């Protein structure tokens, strides 16, 4: 499948796995991931988002970032649906370790066991690590 950007530029769609492992706000790895995701989706790529380890914290509800003056992840993630980014997967074990359950998350995602998550990673055309 190809997407036409302008009269000259055609981009082939690849299956890109975005592996998200860092908590939000403490450093900028998490924000870089969101920026890459939106850019890639604008260019018609097929994105699979894989949240594991502390990355799951990006999905918590009720993030109020006014006092730390950073863009809220909750708000940015809400925009994903508009961009057609709807393949979100989350590591079951990482949720359990951190005492978080799916009802506490602000976006719809599918929780997977370790084996399924690993298989998902191995099926992509490219992996981006954040």
């Amino acid at each position, binding site marked *: 499948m190809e997407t036409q950007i302008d009269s000259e530029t055609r981009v082939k769609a690849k299956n890109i796995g975005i592996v998200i492992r860092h908590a939000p706000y403490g450093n900028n790895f998490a924000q870089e991931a969101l920026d890459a995701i939106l850019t890639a989706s604008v260019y018609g790529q097929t994105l699979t988002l894989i949240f*594991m380890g502390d990355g799951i914290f990006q999905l918590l509800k009720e993030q109020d970032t006014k006092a730390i003056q950073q863009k809220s992840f909750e708000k940015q993630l809400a925009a994903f649906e508009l961009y057609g980014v709807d393949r979100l997967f989350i590591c079951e074990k990482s949720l359990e370790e951190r005492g978080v359950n799916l009802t506490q998350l602000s976006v719809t995602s599918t929780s997977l066991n370790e084996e399924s998550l690993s*298989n998902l*990673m191995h099926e992509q055309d*490219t992996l981006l*690590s954040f």
Partner: protein
Amino acid sequence: MKRSILHIVNQSPFDKPCLLQCLQNYSEGDCIVFLENGVYGLLPNHSASNDVIKRKCYAIKADTEARGLKNSIDEKVELIDFGQFVHLCTEYNLVQSWY
């Protein structure tokens, strides 16, 4: 279609969970390249040491030498330089960096 992953670990397992997360996502046909502080993961005395040595492992020689680990690393681990590292990356479908 199942592809092979070249995993990169640059953090010490005594400090960060990166190596453990890497091992959880390791499949037959993958390999692990240890560099920078990741080379401490090749010491034989941490909780995942037995798992590590069952996998296909490479380490950046310069990083093991710098840290005085040359004699503590199992012979099975292939010591490589950056040129060989680059070449290795072209031999795998996917690269995943655990930092």
